[in-house]
């Protein structure tokens, strides 16, 4: 059994699937990370992803132009992020609950629009693969790592970028401060709301790209509840990664690869019931959390707490 799983084809397959599955998680989680680091739990990602996924799908289906599609998805996501910010920052609503509201709203709306504007699932031509000259010809790893579509590369590029923004820019400094000690930031004249509006809107926009990456780059289709819980896992991955981009990436890859692995286990006919195999990613995540939780030093202590200046 183990030999079967250690075959090169399986390892490469797991890697390839892992990288692809990780793509939507990365966009959504990195965006969510900014939101959470600034102190706002944005639980409605799933709903945002769905609406944006539909928007991207629809534009691609009607115009064939996926740059437009991507732009619109980002915009739609950003607008929903703005709405989230208004609800959680300005109206100081309970963030978990408003997130569930946004999710239900997005789930219903995307389905409704799909029904009215498209009808039944229709395949589209999605974002094409972009071979990286030279590298994509590498044996074994070339096709896995350097022959993906643009959105996959983009997702992985987000990780160092996010790290840079968070750690090397004044905005990043403000975001972290606002999430840890909003009173301190406030006393230095930083607008806590403004920073949170920026991050929450950004999280929405990134969730929009995540949705688009599903509907026009990975699946090239739209279907009711296309994301099927992915947005919630993305939120969980942010905790998992301890609010640090590279750890989040590791988590996304781990989760996706274990998911891919369980598919391989079944496909190879190893006698593990599918339901038991299906538990693997979740069990493993918990196990990983047991180890990860101890190492978390800096966390956004103000997470989920609306800021009020004591007045």
């Amino acid at each position, binding site marked *: 059994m183990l030999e079967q799983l250690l075959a090169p084809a399986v390892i490469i397959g797991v890697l390839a699937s892992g990288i692809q599955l990780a793509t939507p998680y990365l966009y959504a989680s990195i965006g969510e990370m900014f939101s959470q680091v600034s102190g706002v739990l944005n639980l409605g990602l799933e709903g945002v992803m769905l609406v944006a996924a539909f928007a991207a799908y629809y534009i691609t289906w009607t115009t064939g132009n996926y740059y437009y599609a991507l732009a619109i998805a980002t915009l739609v996501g950003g607008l929903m992020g703005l709405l989230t910010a208004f609800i959680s920052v300005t109206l100081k609503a309970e963030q978990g609950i408003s997130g569930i509201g946004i999710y239900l709203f997005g789930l219903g709306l995307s389905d409704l629009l799909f029904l009215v504007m498209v009808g039944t699932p229709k395949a589209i031509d999605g974002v094409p693969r972009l071979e990286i000259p030279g590298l994509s010809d590498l044996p074994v790893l070339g096709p896995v790592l350097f022959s993906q579509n643009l959105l996959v590369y983009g997702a992985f590029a987000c990780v160092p970028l996010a790290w840079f923004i968070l750690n*090397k*820019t*004044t*905005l*990043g*400094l*403000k975001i*972290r*401060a606002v999430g*840890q*000690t909003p*009173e*301190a*930031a*406030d*006393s*230095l*004249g*930083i*607008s806590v709301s403004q920073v949170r509006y920026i991050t929450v809107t950004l999280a929405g926009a990134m969730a929009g790209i995540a949705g688009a990456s599903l509907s026009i780059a990975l699946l090239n289709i739209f279907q009711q509840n296309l994301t099927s819980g992915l947005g919630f896992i993305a939120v969980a991955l942010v905790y998992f990664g301890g609010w640090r981009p590279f750890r989040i990436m590791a988590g996304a890859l781990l989760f996706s690869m274990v998911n891919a692995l369980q598919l391989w286990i079944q496909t190879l006919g190893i006698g593990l019931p599918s339901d038991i195999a299906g538990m693997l990613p979740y069990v493993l995540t918990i196990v990983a959390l047991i180890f990860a939780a101890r190492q978390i*030093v*800096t966390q956004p202590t103000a997470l989920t707490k609306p800021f009020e*200046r*004591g*007045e």
Partner: protein
Amino acid sequence: MPIETVELRNVSKRFPGVLANDQVNFDVHAGEIHALLGENGAGKSTLMKILYAMYRPTEGEIFINGKLAELRSPADALANGIGMIHQHFQLVPGFTVVENVALGLKSSRGPLTDLDVVTKRVQELATQYGLSVEPNALVWQLAVGQQQRVEIIKALYRDASLLILDEPTAVLTPQEVKEFFDILRRLRDAGNALIFISHKLYEVMAISDRVTVLRDGRVVGRVKTADTNQKELARMMVGRDVITRWDKPPAQQGPVVLKIEHLSAANDKGITAVRDFSLEVRAGEILGIAGVSGNGQRELAEAIAGMRRATAGTIWVDNQNVTNQSPAQVSASGVAFVPEERMTMGVVREFTVAENAILETHAYPPLANRGVFDFGQINDHCTRLVREYDVKTPSLDTPVKSLSGGNIQKLILARELDRAPRLLLAAQPTRGVDIGATEYIHKRLIEQRANGTAVLLISEDLEEVRALSDRIAVMYEGQIVGIVSPDSKMEDLGLMMAGIKGNDANPSTC
């Protein structure tokens, strides 16, 4: 433009149900230190938060250099040269010193941070005003005194020429206070204006040029420091004379209640903070532990209370071994604990006065029968506590967070002392508490002594330790440097607190 004068005219601030400031006039000039005095809840912080634009006044105006100023937010205040150092520091604990200073500043590199530039300027300021601090240290790792320096550097970095200092000394040790006052004088002499809030009258006398006294939100007096004395100030604040010196009857010492043998314990960072510590406290005596903060006092108290693991040694209470027992077991052995930070350790802020009064006794008869509350009993019990201990509260149902610090401390004392403990651990019992309440708390501690309780008093306020203790143990780096009489000279105590052995310093040992 540097600040020459700042004036508050007819400022009022109304909170729901409270008129915190009532037609207050106040002014401060460049080159002076203006002290603001008043009991807990008199409205000092509120007034200062208005000046720093954290609150909008209900009515009244602010004039800066004679011109009406429209301050909408702390950013405006900062831009006008007003800086504020809060009692609860406004620092990001997970940031380095430099990051804290750079936060919210314009960077010379546009969107990118310029921490190296900031570091340099921080070092310059540090040398200029004697504010030595390690720029790259994480703030949560710094001692309070150092954190406070960071706050001052933050304000200076932003060219604040008016510094508001809200109870800056409450958390400092005498040594730190001394250094701090040097810094304040330097700042004043450099032409800055300073507002200084403190509950300690001798500090106000030592550092300020003028004093304004608030009571119930109104100004009740303004004097030149040179023209007044502590007694007069106290009378202005409280409306009567206040006792600061106690004549205790001689100690009626009983048997040893607390016996600590070779105790060691580590701090939160895992470093040994109490090492090979031995001590005895007898019934009917107050043993004061003096020392610069961070020398293991906190860990010692927590180890006794069962809140922290002892890595070695034994703790006996009434000949009962309580080493590494749970807080509940320790408490059951007759130990009462007034912890250092009342808001986080002593009370549940959101709970009512009544709920907090039964924090330890709620599970037992007569307050509860088989785990079910008897509200009649609870009500009677709490009413009695509140009366006996003079806790000023609108009702038993008032959330504790809206009581003043002094009243919260009285409530904690009521709760702890009512259990007639064998041993009372009191850590910083009067920190941030106004003089009226301080007097009351002191009275209660002495009363316990008379009742035959063993009292272990841990305080960084040397005046307090000397006023109350029968013996003073000076703690340095987790160990006792020496045990001396309360009549020892201040300077000698100071030397011992710096780690110089009792014998060398030659105070009267006991």
